[in-house]
């Protein structure tokens, strides 16, 4: 049981770290395009790892038919498909409205 706890804590910790980095990037980066870099990538892996941790915990903690872990697997798959698509949609909307990307040496917006 202890090993499972350690593994689960590791997954949750890494997931939390990446989500935190995504949030810091959202605040630090200079414009919309670069901010989407931070959120689009870090939230995908961070959310996926947190759900994976919950999955492992549930799988070893509760006996019976593993219905909840199966649902969590689907959740991970859908996050990995939906998150880049949403990022792409935001990018496209910004590009089509004519938002100029930030270049090196400019002031942050």
């Amino acid at each position, binding site marked *: 049981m202890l090993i499972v706890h350690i593994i689960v804590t590791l997954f949750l910790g890494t997931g939390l*770290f*990446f989500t935190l*980095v*995504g949030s*810091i*990037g959202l605040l*630090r*980066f*200079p414009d919309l*395009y*670069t901010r*989407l*870099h*931070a959120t*689009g*990538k*870090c939230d*995908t*892996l*961070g959310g996926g790892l947190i759900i994976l941790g919950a999955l492992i915990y549930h799988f070893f903690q509760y006996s019976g*038919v593993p*219905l909840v872990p*199966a*649902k969590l697997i*689907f959740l991970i798959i859908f996050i*990995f*498909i939906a998150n*880049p*698509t949403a*990022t*792409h949609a935001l*990018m*496209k909307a910004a*590009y*089509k409205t004519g938002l*100029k*990307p*930030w*270049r*090196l040496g400019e002031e942050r917006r």
Partner: protein
Amino acid sequence: MALGRREEMKLKKNGFRIFLTFCIMAIFWVLLSGIFDMFHLISGLICCNLVSLLSHDLLIKGKSEKNLLKLLRLLFYIPWELWQIVLANIDVAYRVLHPKMPIDPLIIEFDTTLRKDFSLTTLANSITLTPGTVTILVKPERGRFWVHALSKKSANALIVDQTMQKKVAHVFMEKQVQTETHEVFE
């Protein structure tokens, strides 16, 4: 003979499609409901049957000749993609947490020889999830991509090596040649 050979083949193919859709629907029903008594199972199966009879050509379409091989290749592509996602996250974390914030954004534009919807979607989502690049726009008719990159180095993976385009083309069995790329400054 009442049915020609061609019609017979078509019917066979349709039957297989209906059966496959039915199986997927039934698995989803059992998984998401989680109730195993007779009433719920039978009503679920009836619903699956109706749906798969009415809309079997929505889920699985096109010529299904080499779909199994494509699926197998996709399964081999996914672990590589997952590793790229981890690398991308470490890259972004480094850039975010570095005090000087080493970014030099640029937009690049390149053509691919991919034309099918599914392969274009896979490539676009893969580009978004790999180090330092995000897809902005895709023109499906010409297979043209606009990509926002965080630095020149991460853009080079798409411009010079074109590893990802080759891998996706290999998975979906479309031919891929080295293509022209240029930067856009607007």
